Structure formats: C-alpha cells, structure tokens
C-alpha cells in the first residue's frame, strides 16, 4: 500500500554519530534494552497498520520513568527524532518508526502500581494492557470502561495517545473521560504532572490536550485511571432489518426514546455474511442490516430498558427481535461483531479498515455512496458501525497480489474519508490520524487551524523531534496534496468542503 512519503522538507537527521548515540543510550538503559542490529529491529518495523513498514535506527525499551527521561534528554541534545510505541496495535501507523530516529517502546513499563478501590482509581504504567486493568480491579467490583476491540492486546499508554474509544464509549465516554492524572515527559526530559486525584486541575485542560495527541507532544509514564462499579447486569437485543434506512431510523428512535444504551452497533449484510461463516453466532443472513443494542446497570434498570428497546425496534419495523437470555448468550450475540475484522479477512487476503465519524442521520446516504464507490473502484466493502455515535468502519476487501488493487483500495479509502468530511463528520473517530490519514487532514482543516496545531506542538517540542511526519501535516504537505488532489479530477472525488 502506498505509504504517504516523507517530503524532503520533513527529513530530520540526528546531529550525533551513530556509535556515540549507541554508547550514550546504552549507559542509561538496563542490559539488552537497546537494540540496534537489523534483525533485532525487524519486529518493530510496523504497528497494526502492517502495510507501512520502516526500520528505525535503534529501539530502546526502558523499564523506569528515570530511564525514559534520560533517553529523551540524550535525544534532545543530539536532535534525534523519537517515535513512541506501546503494544504496536495501532491502525493508523502512529508507531511506525522514523528511519533516522529512535523507537522508544514502553512495553516493559507494565506494572499496575496501585489500586485505590475506595477512591475508585488505579495508577498504572503505560505498558499495561487495557484488559489487564479490569482483570486486576474485578475483585473489587470495579472495572475500566473504555473497551477498544483490541483491548486484550493494546496498551493503556497507547489508548491515551489515541484517545481510544470502543463499543461502550457511547455511554461511558472515551479515554479522556476516564482518566484523572498523567505523569508526562517531554522531549527535553522534563516531567509534568497533569490532572489531579480530584476531578480537575488548575488552569488550562492539559489532560484533554495531551490525550489523543498521538505521541507528538511527549510520552506518558504513568496514568491514573478512573474505575467504575461493574454493572450488576447486562443484556443485549439483536434486531434485523430488511432496509438500511429503517435500521438507521431505529438507531435514531432509540436515542429519541431517551435511551443511552451501553452499546449500539450495526452491521450490514456483507459484514453479517462474513461473520456468520466464521463464528456461527446465528445471525440472520437475509437482513440488510442488524443492530446489537446493549443495556447495562442494575437489574431493574436493565429489564426496564430492554423492554423499551424491544418496543422501539418493533415499532421501527424490525423483521426479527431477539433478546439474550443469559450471559453466555449475550457473549454469543456479540461474538460476531467482535470478530468482524478477522471474519472479513477470510474472504480475501487483505482488507483495509477505515475509521470515520458522521452524524448518524447521514448514514443511509453515506452507505449508498460507499456502494457507488464500490462499483467505481471494483472492490467490495463490508460495513460495521458504532451506530450510537456515528463512528463507521468500512472494511475494504482486496487482494494485494492482484493487479493494482492496492492502489484502488487506498483511493477508495481516501474517498470514503472525504465523504465523511463532506457530510459534516471527521476523518477519524478513534484510530487516530497517524501516518495513514495525514493527507486527509489537509481536507478537514484549513491553514489557520493547522498553524494553531503547529503552535501548540512548538510549546512542547520546538524542534519537531517527536513522531515527525505524523498526525498533523506541514503546510508544505497540504500545498502539495492540494495540487495533486485537484489534478486527479473533480469527478473522482466529492467537492472539497469550504471552511
């Protein structure tokens, strides 16, 4: 897949010799924590966006906050670019190494430092897996709510960098809504304590600024997360519709009825067919769309809410409405949705998972356009949708070994992102911009806005050493992309929106 290439204006070279850098970093790290032989670097050449691969100069795996600070001080003095990596599960190339820089991997910092059950918070190191937090707090009847689909593997530090969401974020919020405090280290090795153990901090909301900043402003060395009481009960309704527009209307009706479900997901016919072959969850194969709508809370809240949800689905014209009868059935209903990506991966050797958000009311139009684009690019696309909050995951299926399917898949994906912006949405709901969507940032933001982003970056990293070439494009890149964009011809892409 065509990785957006670095412009010559974006190239940064360290101002320290390779051997000297190795010596300095080795002196501040434990044995075997600095990798610089090629075969040792290979496992780190990509993150979850496996189509983009690049080797760094070297890889550091610190074990303590002090080591992180020392490493960054050395890099700052030597003007060495640094890319941070958690578990490497990101889907936008955010942890793709920089060829002339260091990859700083936080995976060894994986301790749960302290759980305060009464105050409902936990201090965790960035390398702790998302799911490991809830596993550790479960004995206290508490859990950590944000549940990205990769949660058994992804790291909480990565979640903070991307402001990750997940199925339950409609009701429980994103990462930014579920953390209290960060220990944050800048490229100069300075430690800042952001947030507090209370519910706010003095001055500007730096916690919100840093969450979702994709490793561009610094690195988190400890996170204090909020814990919530585990719900007493959870139950899910599966509703089938013979028409996408009816399913979209049902989503609006659920919200209109004053219900905020714990989860509200939609799968189209192609996604359902793929999933059913793989998981055999018993999904209705003739449905144009299926909805999974979950309720959680106290037993009384859930039975009341489930009854109201059933009514809404029936009134909206569902052809079939099923309710999970117990916990194992609830998990079975969800198994398909959770396996959507690997299921689609069985149909063709490759798939390209998109991530855009749109106002829910535009879903029928957007899906229709995605279908039209499918004809245009001669590629199939299955759609999975966090219906409650408008976050769409089109899965473009292709075979990288066949002709120019790679290029077509990429162009199809770019067209979908621009479609999201066209209807008043955004190019990324939860996977981040990383490298993948950097060109589309030029479509979503104007020059003044990009300059504001650069000015904020300069507050923390005036030399631009952190994660260069990611997340926020340079004005140079946008000028070049803009020219390229028009050149391709307006008939292939929607009108660029005006800001």
């Amino acid at each position, binding site marked *: 897949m065509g990785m957006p290439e670095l412009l010559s204006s974006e190239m940064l070279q360290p101002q320290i010799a390779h051997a000297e850098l190795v010596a300095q970093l080795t002196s501040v790290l434990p044995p075997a924590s600095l990798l610089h032989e090629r075969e040792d670097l290979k496992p780190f050449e990509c993150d979850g966006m496996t189509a983009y691969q690049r080797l760094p100069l070297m890889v550091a795996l610190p074990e303590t906050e002090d080591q992180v600070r020392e490493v960054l001080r050395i890099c700052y003095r030597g003007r060495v670019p640094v890319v941070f990596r958690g578990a490497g599960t990101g889907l936008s190339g955010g942890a793709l190494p920089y060829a002339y820089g260091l990859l700083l991997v936080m995976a060894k910092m994986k301790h749960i430092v302290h759980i*305060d*059950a*009464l*105050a*409902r918070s936990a201090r965790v190191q960035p390398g702790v897996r998302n799911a490991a937090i809830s596993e550790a707090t479960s004995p206290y009847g*508490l859990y950590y709510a944000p549940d990205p689909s990769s949660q058994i593997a992804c790291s909480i530090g990565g979640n903070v960098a991307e402001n990750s969401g997940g199925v339950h*974020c409609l009701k429980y*919020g*994103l990462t930014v*809504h579920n953390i209290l405090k960060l220990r944050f280290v800048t490229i100069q090795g300075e*430690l800042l304590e952001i947030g*507090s*153990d*209370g*519910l*706010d901090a*003095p*001055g*500007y*909301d*730096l916690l*919100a*600024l840093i969450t*979702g*900043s994709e490793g561009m*402003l610094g690195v988190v060395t400890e996170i204090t997360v909020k814990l919530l*009481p585990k719900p007493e009960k959870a139950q899910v309704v599966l509703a089938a519709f013979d028409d996408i527009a009816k399913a979209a209307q049902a989503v*609006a*009706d659920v*919200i209109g009825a*004053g219900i*905020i479900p714990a989860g509200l997901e939609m799968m189209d016919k192609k996604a359902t067919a793929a999933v059913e072959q793989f998981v055999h969850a018993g999904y209705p194969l003739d449905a144009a769309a299926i909805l999974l709508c979950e309720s959680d*809370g*106290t037993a*009384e*809240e859930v039975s*009341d*809410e489930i009854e109201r949800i059933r009514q809404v689905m029936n009134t909206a014209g569902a052809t079939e409405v099923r309710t999970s009868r117990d916990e194992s059935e609830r998990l079975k209903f969800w198994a398909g949705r959770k396996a959507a990506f690997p299921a689609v991966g069985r149909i063709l050797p490759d798939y390209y998972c998109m991530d855009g958000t749109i*106002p829910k*009311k535009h879903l029928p139009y957007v899906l229709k356009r995605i279908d039209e684009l499918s004809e245009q690019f001669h590629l199939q696309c299955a759609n999975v949708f*966090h219906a409650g*909050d*408008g976050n769409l995951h089109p899965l473009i299926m292709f075979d990288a070994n066949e002709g120019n399917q790679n290029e077509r898949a990429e162009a199809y994906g770019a067209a979908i992102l621009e479609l999201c912006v066209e209807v008043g949405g*955004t190019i*990324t*709901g939860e996977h*981040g*911009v990383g490298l993948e*969507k950097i060109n589309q940032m030029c479509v*979503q933001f*104007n020059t*003044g*806005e990009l300059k*504001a*982003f650069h*000015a*904020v*970056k300069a*507050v*923390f990293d005036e030399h631009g050493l952190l994660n260069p070439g990611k997340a926020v494009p340079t004005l140079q890149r946008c000028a070049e992309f803009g020219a390229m964009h028009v050149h391709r011809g307006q008939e292939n892409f929607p009108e660029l929106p005006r800001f």
Partner: protein
Amino acid sequence: MRDVLEKFSETIRQAAAEHTQLRIRGSGSKDFYGLALIGDVLDTCTLTGIVDYEPTELVMTARAGTRLRDVEKTLADAGQMLAFEPPHFGPEATLGGCIASGFSGPRRAAAGSARDFVLGVRMINGIGEALHFGGQVMKNVAGYDLSRLMTGSFGTLGLITEISLKVLPQPEQELTLRFELDETQAIASMNAWAAKPLPVSATCHHERALHVRLAGAAVAVGAAHKKLGGETVPDGAQFWQSIREQSHPTFAHAPALWRFSIKPTSPPLGLGKQVMEWNGSLRWVAEDLDPSRAFAIAHRADGHATLFRGGNKRHGIQQFSAGLLAVHKKLKRAFDPHGILGFGRIHADF
C-alpha cells in the same frame, strides 16, 4: 452574522496591533471569578441563536451569546439536558460564559464535566483568525483537542463564537434522600455507594446532613431508595439549585469561598464551614483562609485549591508548579501572541 464575526476579528486585530487589552464578556455573570478584569469589553451578547439541534443526534450547536436559560429550555422541551448541570451565577448567563468558565454543577461526578460534553468550537484567536476545532460528533480524534482546551480558559486563548455540545436525555425520575451523618461517615458512605451500581446523580454534605439525589428509570430509583433508606426530601430540586447557584446560606454569607478539588476519600479538612460535593472530590470552604495554607493543604490531599470568590487574591487564585506555569505561558502566547485577551485573568503571568 458574518458581519458581526468579521467585526470581532477586526476589533481583535486592531487591539493586537495597538497592544490594547480586551475583555471578552457575555453578561458578566462570572466576573466575580479570577484576577484582574482589565481592558475594553468585547461584548458577545448579540451573538445569539441555536444554530442546530437534533435530539436524536444528541448534539446542540449554539452561538456563544445565547442565554443559558434559553439553551436549557429548548433542551427541556425535547426531554433533554446539559448533563453537567452548569451553574448560571446570573440570570443572563450565556453559553459562551458557561463553556469559557468550564464550571460544572452537582451532577458532574456522575455524568461528566462541561469539557467532557464539548464536541467542537468556532473561535477567533488573538490575531483575529476564525478557526474551527472539533465538530458535531463525539468520536473525533483528528488533530489536538483544542475545543476541550478552550473549555475553562476564561477567554484567554480566544473568543469562542459557537459551541457544539453533546446533550443527554433527562432522567425519568429524580428523588432526593437525606441522611444524618457526620463528615467522616458521609465521606465513607458517598465513596462506598459510588463503587456500587446505584443510580446516584449527585451528593452533598453540609453540617450533619448528607443529601443524595437518585436519578433514572422509576423502577431503578425505587429499588435504590429501598436499598439505601434515608429520609425523602420533598423539595429536592430547590435544594440542588441552591447548591448549584451557591444561593445556599453557607455560600451566600461566606467572607471568602475556597474551592478544594481533591481525592474524594481525603479525610475531613477541618478548615471551618464547608459544603462537600462530588462524593467528596469537591469541598467548598466558606472561610477567609490564608492562601499558602490552603494551597498546601490541597496539595497534601492530592489535589488543588482555588480562591473562588472574595478573599485576598494578592497571591493568585490558583497555584501552579514551575513546569506547568511555563507551559501555560507558552500556550497563551501560541493563541494570543500579543497578550491582549484577558491577560492576567487566571494568573498574573499569562
């Protein structure tokens, strides 16, 4: 409306060129807060109107000068609300002031803060440029979260002209219970209940009374009432309003009001007259405390203190570490390079 916005940009550009101070002001309902109120007033009161509201999208977009009471009425008519329950502190309070001050009310601990519900802002920065950050969707991670950064920035980073907010349904039923508990017992109870799946939407302890507001489906509220017991309070809504708007006697007669934002399980502060909210995370102390003592006590309780109303503001209203102060000064310069928007409102140095 474009003319109005263009005029704002022009005013800001001129002030930047002439290095004259501007003070962004809605109805002035939050004027009591902060340090110096200097400069020519940049009045947002005519910038009114709900631009877009779709109950089923859970989003409302309104111009900054729209009165908060009008926003709340429109939402209530559709059975929805601003879940962070903002204080008005004045009858003509604007939405812009609400978001620029970032204050949240009794429901904050259960539902989230003002900043949690901001989806996007349109703003004009300190050199008169019109910018748009975020959008109208909750899941949006493109670029840095500047719309949430603007929340609570008191007009020092730019003029907010329009805000998109997530809104939520009103609960079907609310019920306020009262328990006779001392401060230590109240802290223990609030935190214990917060760790259980109970539909608690607000807590408040004052003298020997702990008030708890249950909210949600009628069956859920009824079941929770059975579990918790306590005495029902007939005019609960009025009580919560007096806490939110600080019209309750403890606030109204305070010589000064300090706001402690600390770990909820912190033991009693022992500083005098107090109203405690948010499961113990928020403690209002209605005493004229020595600022260095207040800041030190808050720091030991893993939080921070703000001189919220009155008192001696000579040493500032909040304390910042050297590192964070440096970041604040730089961020201020990034948005307002000439330092003409509300300089010194939050801290003398930015």
